[in-house]
């Protein structure tokens, strides 16, 4: 478990995170010992297929799913998130951590005006309505909503998808959090709007020195935005390395498979490259390395021993038996 390589102070430090479904019946371990750090101003992507546990991890950072059992530690600065009461938690949410969700169409309350929703985090902190609305309009303008002040009274259905995602982002940013969690922020948008939103995320995090944890399954999104990529498979992080190194030289066979499966415009392929098989259900996670049944280079020990996480020379870490002897 030698993981600490980041020079900057860790803003968000997740260690040994486990997430289990409700006890009673058979409890299923959805997330199995995840370590993850995001430094101040650092942009980390958490990548994985559906069911890898990436979204449930992101939601656990905000303690959103009350019925799940969360173990381990989630530290934000000096605050242990898992030890907070519900009341203290509401003070951290919105003002220290902001979160953006997948679908801007449904992430806004249809019955509340844009102004009321964007100013809500400020109103919760006792800021007067007039000042809160003015600040909301400023943030919306910064995010490229034109004539923001005139549109505070508008309702979500009057906004397009891209505009709504700006509103959602404004809601997350108006409380001036230290870190932003974006859970598949572009998945529900069309390609052109995706580019706009990514550009916006890039600018916003850069300008404000905001930590970003980007949850996505889209490696194309990752390449342009993240400083570091953590690849998740079946509830574990299998590889976590700087973005350039990971794309140039993926060490884990799963990462290599994912990268090979990204469709490319400049190479003609007879068919799409895929990783054979399907990710295991968390209830039926194979022994040893969970990827071994699909791994092209699996060895005997992969089926019996869980690979330990080791540091890589480029400041990342890896959980694969293959790397142990190679001295890579």
């Amino acid at each position, binding site marked *: 478990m030698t993981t600490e390589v980041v020079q900057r102070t860790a803003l968000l430090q997740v260690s040994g995170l486990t997430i289990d479904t409700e006890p009673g019946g058979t409890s299923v371990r959805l997330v199995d010992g995840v370590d993850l750090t995001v430094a101040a101003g650092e942009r980390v992507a958490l990548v994985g297929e559906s069911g890898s546990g990436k979204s449930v991890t992101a939601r656990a950072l905000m303690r959103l799913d009350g019925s799940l059992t969360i173990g381990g530690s989630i530290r934000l600065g000096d605050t242990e998130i898992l030890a907070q009461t519900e009341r203290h938690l509401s003070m951290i949410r919105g003002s220290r*951590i902001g979160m953006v969700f997948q679908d801007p169409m*449904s992430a806004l309350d249809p019955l509340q005006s844009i102004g009321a929703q964007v100013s809500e985090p400020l109103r919760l902190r006792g800021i007067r309505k007039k000042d809160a609305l003015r600040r909301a309009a400023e943030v919306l303008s910064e995010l490229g909503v034109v004539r923001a002040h005139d549109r505070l009274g508008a309702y979500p259905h009057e906004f397009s998808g891209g505009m709504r995602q700006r509103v959602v982002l404004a809601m997350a940013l108006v*409380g001036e959090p230290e870190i932003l969690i974006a859970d598949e922020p572009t998945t529900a948008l069309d390609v052109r709007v995706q580019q706009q939103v990514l550009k916006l995320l890039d600018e916003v995090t850069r300008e404000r020195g905001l930590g970003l944890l980007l949850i996505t399954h889209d490696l194309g999104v990752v390449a342009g935005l993240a400083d570091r990529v953590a690849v998740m498979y079946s509830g574990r992080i299998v590889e976590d390395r700087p973005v350039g190194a990971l794309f140039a030289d993926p060490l884990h066979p799963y990462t290599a498979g994912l990268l090979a499966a990204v469709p490319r415009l400049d190479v003609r392929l007879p068919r799409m490259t895929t990783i054979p098989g399907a990710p295991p259900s968390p209830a039926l996670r194979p022994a040893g390395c969970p990827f071994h049944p699909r791994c092209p280079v699996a060895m005997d020990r992969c089926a019996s021993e869980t690979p330990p996480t080791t540091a890589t020379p480029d400041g990342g870490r890896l959980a694969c038996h293959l790397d142990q002897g190679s001295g890579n």
Partner: protein
Amino acid sequence: MVVGAVAVIVVLAVVGPWVAPESVYRSDIANALAGPSSEHWLGTDDQGRDVLWRTIAGARSSVLSAVLVVAAYSLIGTALATMATVGGRWIDETLMRVTDIGFALPGLVVALGIAAALGPSLSSALIAMIATGWPYTARLLRGVMRETMASPFVDGAVVLGVSRWRLMRRHVLPNSLDVMTVKWAGDIGNTVLVLAGLSFIGVGAQPPSAEWGAAVAGARDYLSTAWWAALVPGIAIVITAAAFGLLGDMLHERRDPARQGA
């Protein structure tokens, strides 16, 4: 048109007893059971009272009572549904089992029981209807609220730091009540009908009240000779029940997303 009808009914219910001549509560036996005439447009009842004016005067005890009943049990049901949603699993379980008991009480039997205990009167009937009406709102609204709680915008509000009660008040309840208004509008029509029924069988409003069910009951014996005395309040009941029922349908259609512009 439906909105117009409901508006007329509500206005009559409010002002009816004030504009109706005082004679609607006084007997004029010499004029009893007279047919429609220029003086009494829709005839008189067995006490010689003007049927049209009595029906207008009775609108308050019929319609406003129904509105009151629905408002009262909706409030109770909403409070319970909110508590069940905010509270933990145990509060939810307990409240829903209590609601089950509420469902098990037959409205008519409760009404008869309360009439027997408190004496038959309009207020006994109202108490009985409130006592048996709330479980439907509580159960339905709890279901709707659970659904609303699963909406992404609820997560969106939680991550902004909105507390549980504020979440309920500002986001979950308003988005759930939308569905409930449809039910409540329809309920008013239905309650007018039930209240008239209770008065008709004698456990609701008592003579000389102008309440429509009581008026129909009083005129029942003269149906073959003076049909207007029963027919007019009867038609008032039908129109009112239909108007509020249609209002419910209209609200339902209006909130159907397929009929709304994006």
